[in-house]
């Protein structure tokens, strides 16, 4: 069945450096991908999304890249700050109309001051 997973469970990055969080998905027909940030004790918060007809999308300090050939998704965070320390999840909707939203395992990002 479809699944979304992550390569690295933990990642430590020096403050000010860029970070890249990776995600692999198994279903090449997936329509929509989302990155969420979850801080301790809180619910997930939306960061950025991308539709399957796009390769790249940029937000404020964040960029999501989608490589459909190898079914890989990445989140790039530029100039990391202490407030970026959190767990990051990629999530997937297989197809619009079905709307089943499933999450990957998550990567814990720690920013080193």
């Amino acid at each position, binding site marked *: 069945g479809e699944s979304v997973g992550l390569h690295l469970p933990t990642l430590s990055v020096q403050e000010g450096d860029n970070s890249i969080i990776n995600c692999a998905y198994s279903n090449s027909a997936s329509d929509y991908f989302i990155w969420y940030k979850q801080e301790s004790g809180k619910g997930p918060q939306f960061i950025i*999304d991308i539709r399957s007809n796009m390769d790249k999308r940029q937000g404020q300090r964040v960029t999501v890249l989608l490589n459909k050939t190898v079914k890989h998704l990445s989140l790039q965070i530029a100039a990391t700050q202490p407030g970026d320390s959190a767990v990051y999840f990629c999530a997937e909707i297989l197809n619009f109309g079905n709307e089943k*939203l499933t999450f990957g395992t998550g990567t814990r990002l720690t920013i080193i001051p």
Partner: protein
Amino acid sequence: NAGVTQTPKFRILKIGQSMTLQCTQDMNHNYMYWYRQDPGMGLKLIYYSVGAGITDKGEVPNGYNVSRSTTEDFPLRLELAAPSQTSVYFCASRTSNGGEAFFGQGTRLTVV
């Protein structure tokens, strides 16, 4: 706007007891979801709904039931609580296709 509101925030249940986790949203979203998150783990989809009167199973539906009688409310029912249901439960809602999901603050449930 209050967004997505979950009640209660914390609850301790004894094995075999039942309870309903409440979730309500005031954004007129069609799509609603229930997830559970075990410590140090990701979110697992329990049930979801694409509109009033329509519900569907997610990845881990066993031991749970849902209903969606209105657009605003999506309660999650545990009939016979088991220790394996100790978790943090999150409710979320989304608008039309392509919309981000908004999450509640979670309900921390312990079954002893």
